[in-house]
């Protein structure tokens, strides 16, 4: 069985990691001082995204994934928080937290957030906000801006865009607001769209529609997408590759298929087991024991060891990312000895949708 996985894994890995990635994050660290000592909610985190790729970053809430996406764009500027690391985008290297990186934001990279409810300014019309975003990137007249804005609303599947243009966010449904957010985010025609839990606040049907819209934008515009979510079902629905984050570190990086069928890290296995799936009605839903450690409170060795049923003495040592049998990488010294269970079936027919 393991040899079969090896074979599939290698082919998937070669397509998942292209030669020159669109974006490479190297050693991203977010630190702040608490009670006199330095705490790092995100530590030395590295990953990459290929051109046109749809990457999913998964982890429980508190694992550092949202902070990662904010820090990448220099959106964490709270006093006392220190962001370091490097980011390579389209062949150019930027220091994280530098002014040059800030200029990438809203130009080459855009982001949408979880709460479409609060992500739009309640006292300006949808059209006004969209027009602002458009005119930031293109010097067009007000009238032309309006025309483009209405076009953009239509482009994200909003019916009757002319009327919606003049409405306020509170007059729109959650799904509509998220569509508006997407329209604003892609107004600059970015090469990469970060989507931070974009569907968490939406109902299942709307969730599927938004994911469809993202896939369509990815396919028609060639825009790469990084989807950050705690929900593997959502990621399985959209992404090609999965980066699994725990306690501010990457614990596994694998193609979607491998991640689902043959996880290498016990944490990913736990997340898979915790997914609700068709046919599991009546059986107790699995939950990983314990909870994500607060920043600075993780065990010194493998951060997951305290919650891991496979943990042994060797896990008390600091862990490094190792090549995994499935062609990705994994931060688990025991991954070779473990035979972890994934889910079967077509990954794009995700269990949650």
């Amino acid at each position, binding site marked *: 069985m393991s040899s079969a996985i090896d074979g599939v894994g290698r082919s998937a890995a070669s397509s998942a990691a292209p030669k020159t990635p669109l974006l490479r994050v190297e050693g991203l660290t977010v630190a702040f001082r608490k009670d006199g000592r330095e705490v790092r909610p995100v530590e030395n985190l590295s990953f990459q995204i290929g051109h046109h790729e749809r990457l999913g970053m998964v982890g429980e809430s508190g694992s550092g994934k949202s902070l990662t996406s904010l820090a990448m764009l220099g959106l964490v500027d709270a006093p006392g928080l220190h962001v370091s690391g490097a980011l390579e985008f389209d062949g150019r290297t930027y220091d994280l937290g530098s002014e040059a990186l800030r200029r990438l934001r809203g130009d080459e990279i855009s982001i949408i957030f979880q709460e479409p409810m609060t*992500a739009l300014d309640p006292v*300006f019309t949808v059209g006004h906000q969209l027009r602002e975003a458009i005119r930031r990137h293109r010097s067009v007249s007000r009238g032309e801006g309006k025309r483009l804005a209405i076009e953009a609303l239509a482009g994200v599947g909003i019916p009757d865009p002319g009327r919606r243009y003049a409405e306020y966010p509170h007059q729109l449904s959650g799904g509509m607001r998220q569509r508006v957010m997407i329209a604003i*985010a892609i107004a600059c025609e970015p090469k990469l769209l970060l989507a931070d839990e974009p569907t968490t606040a939406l109902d299942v049907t709307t969730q599927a529609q938004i994911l469809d819209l993202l896939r369509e934008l990815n396919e028609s515009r060639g825009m790469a997408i990084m989807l950050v979510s705690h929900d593997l079902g959502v990621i399985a629905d959209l992404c090609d590759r999965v980066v699994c984050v725990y306690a501010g570190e990457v614990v596994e990086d694998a193609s979607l298929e491998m991640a689902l069928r043959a996880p290498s890290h016990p944490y990913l296995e736990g997340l898979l087991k915790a997914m609700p799936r068709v046919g599991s009605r009546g059986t107790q839903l699995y939950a990983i024991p314990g909870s994500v450690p607060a920043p600075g409170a993780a065990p010194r060795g493998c951060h997951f060891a305290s919650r891991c049923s496979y943990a042994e003495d060797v896990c008390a040592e600091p862990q490094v990312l190792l090549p995994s049998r499935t062609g990705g990488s994994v931060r688990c010294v025991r991954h070779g000895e473990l035979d972890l269970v994934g889910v079967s079936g077509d990954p794009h027919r995700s269990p949650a949708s």
Partner: protein
Amino acid sequence: MFRSIVKRLLTVVPTLLLASIVTFGLLKLIPGDPATVIAGDNATPARLAEIRGQLHLDESLPQQYGRWASHAIRGDLGTSLYSTTKIATTIQARLPATLQITLGALLLSVLIGIPLGFIAGWRSDSAIDKAARTISTVGIGIPNFWLGMLLVTVFALKLHWLPAVGFHGITGGLGQTAKYVVLPAIALGAASIAETTRQTRSAVLEVRNKDFVRTLRAIGLPNRTIFKHVAKNIAVPVFTVVGLQASRLLGATVIVEAVFGINGIGSLVVDSVSRRDYPMVQGVVLVMALLILFVNLVVDITYRIVDPRIR
């Protein structure tokens, strides 16, 4: 929006009714026989009868109220017991002085409080923020009349820069008026400046941390645009605070006018208390309540125009 404004206008009716009853009721708080209390123990029966007639004390309460209210609606607040002048005329003559220092103080709250609070909230924990917080803490705690006394002592009695007491109508030229208004306006307005600063700061701080501001930054909009968004978002809370200040300031004139020897309606009410000119007190209280009801109405209607969510 139009409907909600009309609805708001309609709520004025019961409030006005209640306010007039409260004002009318004030006179009924006088313990014992009002006529005796007013005229004093050694008053002649003729004088007592005169006062009873003037106050219509022989009628039933609803009748008295009806008479008083129907006159009040027509602008007739009765006659002063002290000077036999029309109450409405006296108030009318005294009102401009009060309005001038009140508006002066309100202007200071807006011109100092809002920008200071905005900068303090925008750059929280900066030196300006710390200064603004200190100023507003002290401003809220300082007794206005004491501040007035300090200002008079320093700027009028010692430095002779500004007049100590008195009042100058607007007809005498703006510069002259400003000279007389500035010290009272500062004394009166200190607490309001402090409150406006404080509330503006916390409104900015709250809005600044909202998701949509993060969105604006995420899509690369310049600070200028973000500034505009924050400003429009804090408009309603800040406007509410400024509206409340109008009420606070008008009340505080009662004490501050005494410090600066200003003949406004604030000092009128205090003087009338010591002269036992009850109808005059009643008249001033009513006029002040009307002014505040009017300000509240303007504030509420403005909200509905500014904030789409309240429509």
